[in-house]
């Protein structure tokens, strides 16, 4: 599987809902359209809900990778200014 190139990364494993999504959203706001953000998140509620919330914001989800430590990395391409 080819590695996805990303421009920025954010770790939301140290916060809980709703700050998980907020932290990812803030990171996306600081980026340029078309850039890719890697969001590291925990299993359970974050991985169940954060991808959907980011989708509902209008960004493009590219991939969800499972990491060796039980966390996940979601790759998101920023859509819009």
């Amino acid at each position: 599987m080819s590695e996805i190139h990303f421009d920025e990364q954010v770790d939301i494993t140290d916060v809980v809902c709703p700050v998980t999504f907020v932290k990812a959203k803030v990171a996306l706001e600081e980026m340029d359209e078309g850039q890719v953000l890697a969001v590291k998140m925990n299993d359970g509620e974050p991985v169940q809900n954060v991808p959907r919330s980011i989708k509902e914001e209008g960004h493009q989800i590219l991939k969800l990778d499972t990491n060796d430590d039980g966390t996940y990395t979601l790759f998101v391409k920023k859509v819009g200014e």
Partner: protein
Amino acid sequence: MAVDYATLKKGGFMRQKQKNNFSLRLRTVGGHMSAEQLAKVAEVAEKYGEGYVHLTSRQGVEIPFIKLDQIEEVKNALAEGDVVPGVCGPRVRTVTACQGAAICQSGCIDTYALAKELDERYFGYELPHKFKFGITGCQNNCLKAEENDVGIKGGMQVAWVEDKCIQCGVCVKACRNEAITLEDGKISIDTGKCNYCGRCVKSCPVDAYDAQPGYIVSFGGTFGNHISKGETIIPFIESHEKLLKVCDAALKFFEQNGKAGERLKFTIDRTGKEAFEKAIKEAYENE
């Protein structure tokens, strides 16, 4: 002249412990009231009541301390604001609903439209005992469908669309029932585990699911003196027509078999589950 309390109760006037005072229940559907209606309710509560309303457990509004000799006047005043009294007693009560798909991101069905339709079809229909419909838009069950004699829960029957899928894996984790697996670039759905919640559909970034909205219906719920959860005895219903037939069948069964003062759950228990299930399944299977 003797006061006909039964008629007053039927018309939504609940007798208070304070003599000649009534708490007037208003007709609401799915917890929805217009600003115009609310303004009229406020005016009437101020003028004829004690300046407040009570919000009931089933999305109703009651104006307490309405005086017996002002009942007709109050009804006329309310009518000016498109507000009418509700019902109490042995009949179909307020149809409750969450905000549903028209407003809520989680909603799978338009609960308010359905509540209005069921209200028009059944509201106030005379039965052996009270009869409650509740409609909730999804598995989050904010409206607590299974508390009702007939509970309707929105859901989505899903099918994977291979050529749109980017194999991102989001739906696999969005599913709370572990019904979805992604292997060798292919999604498979365990229909035995799927509860029609629609989370896969809503989380999919590329709309790689075909989603058919529909209804999961439960029967015989009651949450008063006796607490019992409504049971689902038929599969997911895709068709709106079929839903109405099934609701008709439940009401008809209760009308024909229920004893006065007996909730649907106890009619089902007394007559035997088989008879009720037969009636519902016939309606479900009848095209």
